[in-house]
């Protein structure tokens, strides 16, 4: 399984959850698989989806899933400590660990060698850390969402990008559409 298959399977269990997605191919694949107002595509900087997701989860009641990459988590490792110390029961961090900087040509990341992100997350104080393979993501994500506890999922899969078009939506439209969605459910 590759990242696009993981996203596809994950989106099968997503209903009204708000989704914040990592830059590059992950966002493009999510957009192609299931674009919806409740998706926020972080189009600029890797390593921000987890922080945005946590800030969002702490600020309103709806469940939030941040879809991150291993490269993105490595570039902002400190954010795992912030997550571990500010648990939001409505927050799920889904790290799609393909052992590579996928969007930029599948250069290997350190998770393919000596670094275990699940252990890093646990050492950062995240209490519910689940490791799984791509094929199990549907079940694992469903369980995390119904647990009522903040969960970090590290889901391993093979590298590789699906062919999906660049997102041409205006960023302000993405943001406004998303905020309208948040408002509509909270009122």
């Amino acid at each position, binding site marked *: 399984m590759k990242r696009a298959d993981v996203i596809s399977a994950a989106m099968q269990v997503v209903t009204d959850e708000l989704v914040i997605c990592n830059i590059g191919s992950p966002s493009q694949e999510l957009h192609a698989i299931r674009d919806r107002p409740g998706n926020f595509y972080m189009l600029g900087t890797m390593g921000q989806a987890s*922080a945005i997701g946590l800030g969002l*989860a702490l600020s309103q009641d709806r469940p939030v899933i941040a879809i991150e990459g291993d490269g993105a988590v490595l570039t902002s490792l400190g954010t795992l400590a912030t997550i571990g110390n500010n648990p939001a029961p409505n927050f799920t961090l889904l790290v799609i660990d393909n052992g590579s900087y996928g969007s930029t040509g599948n250069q290997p990341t350190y998770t393919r060698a000596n670094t275990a992100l699940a252990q890093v997350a646990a050492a950062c104080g995240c209490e519910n850390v689940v490791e799984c393979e791509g094929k199990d993501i549907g079940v694992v994500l469903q369980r995390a969402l119904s647990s009522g506890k903040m969960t970090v999922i590290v889901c391993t899969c093979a590298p590789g990008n699906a062919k999906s078009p660049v997102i041409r939506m205006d960023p302000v439209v993405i943001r406004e559409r998303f905020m309208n969605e948040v408002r509509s459910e*909270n009122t």
Partner: protein
Amino acid sequence: MGLPVTVSQIIIKELEDAGIGFVSSVPCKQLAGVIKGVDASNSIRHVPATREDEGMGLCAGAYLGGKRAAILMQNTALGVTINALATLIQFYRMPLPMLVSYRGEVGEPVACQVEMALHTKALLSQLHVPTYHFHNPEDVRELGAIIDHCFMCSKPVAVLMDAHFWKGQGE
């Protein structure tokens, strides 16, 4: 808290009055009193960040969730926030009051702090971030209007607060 007396206490009151409900921070000695104040505030959720660009991500998320968010940071961190400012806060047109401890100005005891002070206004200007400089303690009275301005135009706005402004009140 009684009558606000220190600039730090006035800053907290201005943040609360402006409806700020979420603050992220990375400490500076000069911000110590403000950080204590946000921790004690009933209406502000304080989430310390491990780095300032992460703090901006947290604030962006809080804003998406319907909260008014602000960041407390030192000007030495401006460099690490440029990417987050340009590709997150500005690209998606989000308001973000940045309360920036302006180290390296007259009264600074640490020579190295001057190096980033030299670049602070130039970088903010290059980024087209509206920037206000608090030098006298009474400048703090502008804060409420500046925060309103920030949310009116949906841009990051920086308030630089130098050593003369704090005059030892930051502790």
